[in-house]
Every structure is written in C-alpha cells, then in structure tokens.
C-alpha cells in the first residue's frame, strides 16, 4: 500500500513535469510573438538573438494600428464571427439531431454524401463560390444583404459545416436511447426533446463547437479579402497583409498586428472557459 503511494507521488511529479514542459513548448511561439512585437527591426534578426527586447518599442503597436482601420476591422470581425457562429449552431444542432435521432429515407446516403464533401480541398471551391456570391447581389433598400461587400457574403457560406455536424452527431449518439424513449412516452415532441433535453445534455459540446467556429471565422483570411472591395467591410486578418511586400517585411509590425488579432480571442476564451467548466459540471449532474 505504501509503495503505491510513493509511486503515485512519483507519478504525480512526473505528470506535472511533463505538463509544465509541454506548456512551455506550447506557449513559446506566443511568448516569442509578443516579445518580437516589441523589438526593432534590426533586433529581430540580430545574431546572437536577444530574448527580451533591449528597449521595448511600444510604438510598433501604434504604427501597426495606424496602417489600417483596425477598429472598423474589429467590429466587422465580431459581426461576422458572431453571425456565422449563431448560424452554425442552429444548422448543426438541427442536422445532428436529425442524424442521431430521426429516421428518414435516404439518411445513410445523405450522411455519406456530406462526409464526402469534406474530402475535397476548399481551395478548389473558392472561385466558383466567388462567382456565385458575385451573381447573388441582393439589396433591400440601401442595405446590401448579399453579394460583394456585404455581411451576407462574409457570413452565409459559413453557416453550415459538415465538420461540426459530424462532431455533434457523435455526441448526440452517446445519449442513451432510453432517455429518448422515456420522453416519447411522456408525449414530448422531437422539437421539444431536442431543445429541452438533448441540447442541455450536450451543452459543452455545443459550446466547444461554437468556440471552434468563432475562432476559425475570426482568423479567416482569404474569403473575406475575396468578397470585399470596400475597406469598411474588411476584417482584422486582412490587416496583416499591410506589412509585407515583395522586397521585405516589417516583421515587428506583423507581430504587433498578430497580437492585436489574437488578444481579443484569448480574452473571449478565458471568459468563456468558466462557462464551459460550469456547463460540464452541470451536465455531470445527469449521472
């Protein structure tokens, strides 16, 4: 008994050592990114390298910020990320519920077909989608709903994802059939069952999908550039291209802009993390 205790202690120490080492490796590129954003351009490529900037250049941030309308970009990024995440969650929950609980003709076929779409690289689809969006111009009054330079173009193509449908279906399938049957006995409709039981039981998975989608929308780069011409419709990641040219790059500014790009999402994540853990404990109650 004693020996297991000792070996448990050794294992704990080992565990933490590995976790901490891993954490350092994971964080290093970020630390390096932040430190580089405060260096001068010559310090960045200096040999031998300096770890901490000799004289922190906070003005890098000022300069990066002034190169593009970042505030406007920020607002757009939030609108697009929130909009597409909202859409994704709705379509994903509905589809995952259909695939996991409902029986309908052609279910297997459509599921395989959707899975197959994952296997083609998105780079192949871009120009066709551009043409589609270009021709879909739709204006209501003065506001453009769809077409080039519209929020619709930035959001709508991304409000359904096979990737997340598959993920959530896996989670929904794990909910025992007994619960579903019990609900049926209680005359609970499918619609109600989905919102009142399935969703809360898989809250964490849903939040996870929300976060994953939010992040990929946040970092999306190529599509937003393609479907916008108006700088007022661009997003944060488009700001990164302001610092590169064919003859050289202002690395310190790219790093500063990257920090500007990443920080909000880290803060959002830190904030939401509490919610996730709460969601986990609550869903743990179901037993």
């Amino acid at each position, binding site marked *: 008994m004693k020996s297991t205790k000792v070996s448990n202690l050794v294992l704990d120490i080992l565990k933490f050592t590995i976790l901490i080492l891993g954490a350092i490796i994971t964080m290093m590129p970020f630390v390096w990114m932040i430190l580089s954003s405060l260096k001068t*351009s*010559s310090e960045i*490529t*200096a*040999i031998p390298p300096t770890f901490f900037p000799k004289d922190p250049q906070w003005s890098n941030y000022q300069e990066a910020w002034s*190169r593009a309308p970042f505030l406007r970009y920020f607002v757009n990024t939030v609108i697009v990320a929130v909009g597409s995440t909202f859409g994704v969650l709705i379509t994903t929950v509905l589809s995952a519920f259909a695939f996991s609980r409902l029986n309908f003709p052609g279910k297997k076929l459509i599921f395989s077909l959707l899975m197959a779409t994952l296997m083609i690289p998105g780079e192949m689809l*871009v*120009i066709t989608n*551009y*043409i589609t969006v*270009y*021709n879909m111009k739709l204006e209501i009054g003065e506001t453009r709903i769809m077409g*080039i330079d519209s929020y619709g173009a930035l959001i709508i193509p991304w409000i359904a994802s096979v990737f997340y449908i598959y993920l959530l279906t896996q989670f929904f399938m794990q909910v025992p059939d007994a619960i579903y049957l019990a609900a049926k006995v209680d005359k609970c409709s499918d619609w109600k069952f989905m919102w009142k039981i399935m969703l809360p039981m898989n809250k964490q998975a849903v939040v996870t999908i929300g976060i994953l989608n939010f992040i990929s929308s946040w970092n999306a780069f190529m599509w937003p*550039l*393609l479907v916008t*011409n*108006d*700088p007022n419709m661009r997003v944060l990641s*488009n700001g990164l*291209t*302001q*610092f*590169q*040219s*064919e*003859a*050289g*790059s*202002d690395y310190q500014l790219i790093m500063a802009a990257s920090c500007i790009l990443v920080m909000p999402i880290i803060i959002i994540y830190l904030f939401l993390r509490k919610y996730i853990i709460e969601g986990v404990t609550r869903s743990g109650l179901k037993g």
Partner: protein
Amino acid sequence: MKKKIVATLLTAVMAASALAGCAQKVDPNADTAASKEATEETTQDATKEEAKTDETAAPEEKTIESCEIEFWHGMSNKQEEVLTQLTDEFNSSNEYGITVTLVNQGSYGDLSQKLQAAAAADGLPDMAQAYNNWLNPYIDKVVDLSDFVATDFDNYDDIIEAYRNECSEFGFVHALPFNKSTYVMFYNKTVLDELGLEAPKTWEDLTTIGEAYVEKYGNAAWGVDDLAGFVEASLRQNGEGYVDATGALFNTDGGLETMTYIMDLYNNGLARLVGEDKYFSNVLSAQAMLGYIGSSTGASYITADGWELGVCPVPSNKESAAYCAGTNLVMFTQDSNKQLAAWEYMKWLTSAEATVTWAVGTGYLPVRTSAYESAEYQEFMASDVTATAAYEQSDAFFTSLASYDASNDVRTAVAAKMEELILDETEPQDALDALVEEINAQF
C-alpha cells in the same frame, strides 16, 4: 480641325514606328518567328489605328460625364500613402468630375488571385495594377489602349523604352507603366572599404571581391533575391537569349559560359541562397554578407546600423542588362465613357509631374525620361544612392517576356530548379542541361 487631324495622324505614325522599333529591340528573341509575327501584328494594328482615328477624327471638345472609377492595387504603407495623395489630387482637380476609388487588394499574390476570380465572374474593376504574366488567361478582357496612346497622350516616346516594349508585348498597347523598379546591387561599403576594394562592375569583379571577402570573414559574400531574374539578366549580359514561346533559347556555348559563372559563384562558396532568411535585406542588415542583387524598392528594408550602405548597378559582362520589375496600369472597363475617364487618370499617373512625385515618395522609378531629367528628381537622386544606381543602368533596362502561356510556370520552375541545382552543387554543364530540360517541360 484639319490641323488636328494632321497632328493625330502624325502621332499615330510615330507611335506605329515606335512600336515596330521596340519589337525589334526585344533583342535576343528578334530572330525567332514568333516575335517577327508580333512585330508585324503591332505594325498592322497601329496602321489600323491610324485608319480608325482618321475616320472618327477626335472631336473638338472632349466630353466625359462625371463617373466613378474603381482601381484595384496592391500597394501598402508609404506607397499607398503617395498613391492616395496623387489620386486625391486628381479627384479634386480634374475638370470632368471623375472620382477614382482606390481599392487595396492586399499583396501582389492576393491581387492576382482576385483579378483572376473577378475575370471568371465577369466582374473586373475599371482599372488595376497587373503584371503581364497574370493577364495571359484574360488578355482579351484588357482594353486596347493603342488608340488612346496614339490620339491623346503627351509624348509616348518619353516613356522609357523597356516599359513601352513591356506594355505592348501582347501585340497592342495593353497598359501604361506605373510602379517600376530594377534590380541593383546593395553592398556593405564599410566592409568593402576595409578590404580596399571598389564596387563590382563585372562578373570577374564579383569573383575576386567575393574571394577576398570569404577569405577574411568566412561567410558567403553574395546573394540574389530573385534567382530566375538573375539567370535571365546574366544570360542577356552574355549576349544570350532566355526563353520565348518556343522554349529555352540558351542551350549554347554562351549559355554554358553563363551557367558556369553562376554555378561557380555558388559551388565555390562565394554566393549563397537566401533560404530561411527569406529576404537578403535581413542578412545584409545583420552584416552577415557583403552584398546582394535585389529590387531597388528593397532599400527601405535595409537597416544600416553601424555601417554604410552602398548601391551600384548590377555587375555585367559582354553587355549590360538590368532586370526591371513592377506592375503596370491596365484598364478593363467596357463602358466608353468610363474608358475615357480612366484614361484621364492613367495619363495623370504617368505624367512627368506625378511620376516624379511617385518616385521621390516611394523609391520606385520614374517612367519617363524627362522625369529623370527634372530638377526635382535630380535633386532627389543626389541624396539617394539607390536611385542613382538605378539611373546609371537605365540604358540597360529590360523586362522579361511574359506574353506566352507558360511564362508564369517558367518563372517559378526556374527559381525552384536553380535552388535544387545549387543545393546539389551541380556541375555547370549538367546544370545547364537540367535547367533547359525543366524549362521546356513547362510548354
């Protein structure tokens, strides 16, 4: 009225002869069938213009209705600032109420992809910056400017000849030159002085100076940012052709000589690849090399901290040849009123006044001979070593032929193949064979 027609005719004839002249001057390719054809075509085209202008005879007063012109560009930072300033000036001062809207489309790569997508969707902007090799798939959507140049342009011959050649290589005037740069040699003058040596002028100089540097400092002395451009320039410096629509043209003794020069530089450790450092401006700034050949616009990325930067024309051999890079202005709008409006703007950007402002503000080169000679630019050059070096080699400017389908592929294939050959320390003859084979495989 009569006077005007005569004048128009005269300009048209001049333009025609100028065009024919240029086409012949695309020297290494002059005796190939393809370029002869092109020459004939240009001449014919120009003659047609002549006839056309005669018929439509420019009206007394030009009327352009007020309109908005969308211009897609890939300029950022200082360059974008100056472009905005020039555009604002045009918008507020033109008499027709034309408003040009600048649209920043990111890097060149982004811009070219976006233009391609827009061409497929039939949604090209009114105007854009573009390299010739981007345009191959949709050159039919580019507006033929021959007419405009012939009837409504201030002294087309004033535009640098190499640029005129580039802008008419598809057989008609498809563009006006805009943000042009050339490859020059940037070097560490302090170190060169320490070695007691002068800036390199010839291929031999590169070798001897390089050896002296390597012996003293241990690092490779030289580098080139664009291997494909360097190979082409070196071939031309040796009086050889490069590539045309039929394939590689340098499987010759002169070609072997050139490859020997290049491969020896690398195989003997005098030159290195840029590799992980991405741009040689970083390496030179860190004083880890003696000098490199790169775009004249790269000067702003070199930090001369504790050493003095020197700039000289690219070292040459039998002939001098200096590679020109940079995009041109092309017009896509099919609306005749917008074409007139966009042309007004293009004329402004290429005017002597604007090109000088542009060059002084950005480090790009003026597109007109008269602009080089202007007092303002002369004054600028006196204080700018890069501009001086660029000007010194301006007689040797050339642009790479890009009007054949495989031109894009050839560019990247040559760069990748050269890298491979250098990494493998290939013997010159084998390198020549491999490179020629690789190029011909692209057709």
